[in-house]
């Protein structure tokens, strides 16, 4: 009797200590990620054809006129860096939301065709209808939601099975990618750089007109998604369990789908479907922060870091300037193969 009264608090203590340690570790890791993003962001602003010291960059950001630096940093590099970070956050957040909700790392928007839909719509809106930036975003979102709904409906047959949804998504993606190629081939003057934007994603020639809508979408939809992170974690236990724990499953699902597709579509309308960022961020974040706790924030940070670093490497690491999507594609595809190999080896339920 007495032994029990002694051990129980001790066990609880150990549990609380463990929990506290994990939380502290998570905070440190997130802090490190944020620092890395800040460093990558600053490097992107300072380094390029010409180097500008931090002081001059700061003065440009604060709005002073600095000869040379005002144009290079203020007009060329700053919007690009902002879009890289914002699009990375959008892709990371949107991707991991889908992966968490559908309980499968392969169910990310860029594999199941949602990014392809947004990209095809954006290319169509620009090339064929010659619409402005805002209308293009609207087009991309409507198409993204439409594709999401279509995949869900097509995959529905006595309930939605994850494998069927993914296979159908792969088919839809193949179809939409060929629509994109067709739209691009109809463009009067073929601009390879512009085409790469819609095929793999690119940040070349970014202006504030493209960067600002993405940042705004992130400011509105990001918190909305984050507010659902508890519900999402519970839905990982299964819909029935989540409902028993007081989660309104259907409502949460709709909010998450709309918000995540919105993020992906806004980012795609501005930067194209940057290859594999939505898919990669979640698994990488899971590796970094370990089990337990929501992956939304870590994945968003990983996404931003990926895009910033990949864009920087694409611009300066090689003889030619590669669009960011080619870099993330070359990095991401082997990781996808590795993930499949690992899951297959483990005999997982792929």
């Amino acid at each position, binding site marked *: 009797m007495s032994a029990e009264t002694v051990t129980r608090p001790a066990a609880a203590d150990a549990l609380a200590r463990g929990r506290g340690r994990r939380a502290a570790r998570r905070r440190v890791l997130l802090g490190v990620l944020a620092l890395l993003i800040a460093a990558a962001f600053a490097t992107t602003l300072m380094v390029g054809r010409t180097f500008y010291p931090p002081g001059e960059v700061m003065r440009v950001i604060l709005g002073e006129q600095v000869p040379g630096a005002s144009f290079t940093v203020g007009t060329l590099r700053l919007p690009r860096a902002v879009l890289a970070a914002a699009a990375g956050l959008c892709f990371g957040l949107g991707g991991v939301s889908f992966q968490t909700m559908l309980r499968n790392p392969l169910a990310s928007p860029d594999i199941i065709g949602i990014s392809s839909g947004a990209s095809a719509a954006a290319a169509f809106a620009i090339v064929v209808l010659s619409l402005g930036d805002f209308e293009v975003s609207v087009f991309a979102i409507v198409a993204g939601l439409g594709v999401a709904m279509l995949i869900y409906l097509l995959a529905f047959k006595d309930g939605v099975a994850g*494998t069927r949804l993914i296979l*159908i998504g792969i088919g839809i993606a*193949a179809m939409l990618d060929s629509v994109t190629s067709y739209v691009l081939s109809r463009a009067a003057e073929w601009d390879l750089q512009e085409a790469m934007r819609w095929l793999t994603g690119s940040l070349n020639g970014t202006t504030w007109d493209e960067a600002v809508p993405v940042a705004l979408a992130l400011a509105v939809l990001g918190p909305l998604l984050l507010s659902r992170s508890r519900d999402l974690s519970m839905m990982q236990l299964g819909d029935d369990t989540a409902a028993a724990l007081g989660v309104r499953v259907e409502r949460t699902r709709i909010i998450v789908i709309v918000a995540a597709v919105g993020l992906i579509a806004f980012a795609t309308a501005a930067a194209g479907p940057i290859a594999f960022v939505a898919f990669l961020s979640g698994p990488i974040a899971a590796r970094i922060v370990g089990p337990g706790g929501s992956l939304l924030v870590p994945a968003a940070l990983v996404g931003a870091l990926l895009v910033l670093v990949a864009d920087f490497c694409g611009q300066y690491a090689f003889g030619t300037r590669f669009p960011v999507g*080619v870099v993330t594609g070359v990095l991401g595809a082997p990781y*996808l193969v590795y993930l499949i190999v690992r899951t*297959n080896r483990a005999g997982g339920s*792929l």
Partner: protein
Amino acid sequence: MTPVGTAPAPDPAAVRRPVRVRILWLLAALLALALLMLASVALGSRNVGIADITAALAGTDATLEQAAVAKRIPRTLLAVVVGAALGLSGAVMQGVTRNPLADPGILGVNMGASLAVVTGIVFFGLAAPTSYIWVAIAGAAAAAAFVYTVGALGRGGATPLKLALAGAATSAAAASLVSAVALPRNDVAGGFRLWQVGGVGGASYDGIAHVLPFLAAGAAISLLSARSLNALALGDELAAGLGERVALARGGGALGAVTLCGAATAVTGPIGFVGLVVPHACRLLVGVDHRWLLPFSALLGASLLTAADVVGRVVARPEEVAVGIVTALIGAPFFIYIVRRQQVRSL
């Protein structure tokens, strides 16, 4: 007696078609192909009269119309041989992997061939037309081996889902590498983007002559493996019990299929979904016996690609939709239909 994981058990009538029915379908398919070839020569972005068509078929190209028709003839021939190659290759791949979703496009084999060709052009200065084809076949073989190895790891062997995913991943990887290799060179990238979509627009008699021996060799290997594929369809153990050397049968079939789609990709660029759609349609018409299924797939593949090329030329006049885009638009819904029909358990 279909193995678990390929299809719901077909009724016996669908498996064994009477020979009379098969011959009837064979004649119908030949007639359809002939009509489509005629349509392919007659229709296009420029309207031509009957007189011009007959004149051009006889070999004159005095007027603009006759010259246009004369240019459509090699194009039609190329569509026929490449379509036949892709249809046959898809049927063999579905037999070898016992997987209803197998297709050179979906399994990433076409993309592997693309990557090999681009790498060869950029880094090794390939120029001779036949060397493209060798390199493309090597790339296709490497991609096929890789995808099958990755897809066959773990429990359950090469299930449709695992193969399709490994193929999609490999395809994406190869596509990224292709852009990374091609982008820095404007001369390569410019010509390359046309090729990348997959089209028969740039057909020439020379090109066809170069690729034809390869396609013939691939077709011969594929058709010879028909009997072994029938045995493989019973499952590996049963096939081995019947005296079939399973690994050899698989390897032979794969070699034929890879040669066909690699060589086809070398001349037209990656064209997807022909190899997926055609064998399924053929199974409905002539049953599952590969000795009938394989030649029929070649025939229907030729018809499908010719038809897709005609559609691509007619719908967007005066411009053209590349045939690779048309086949994707036809084929992807079909892919989804097959996925929906499958039982989830077997995926």
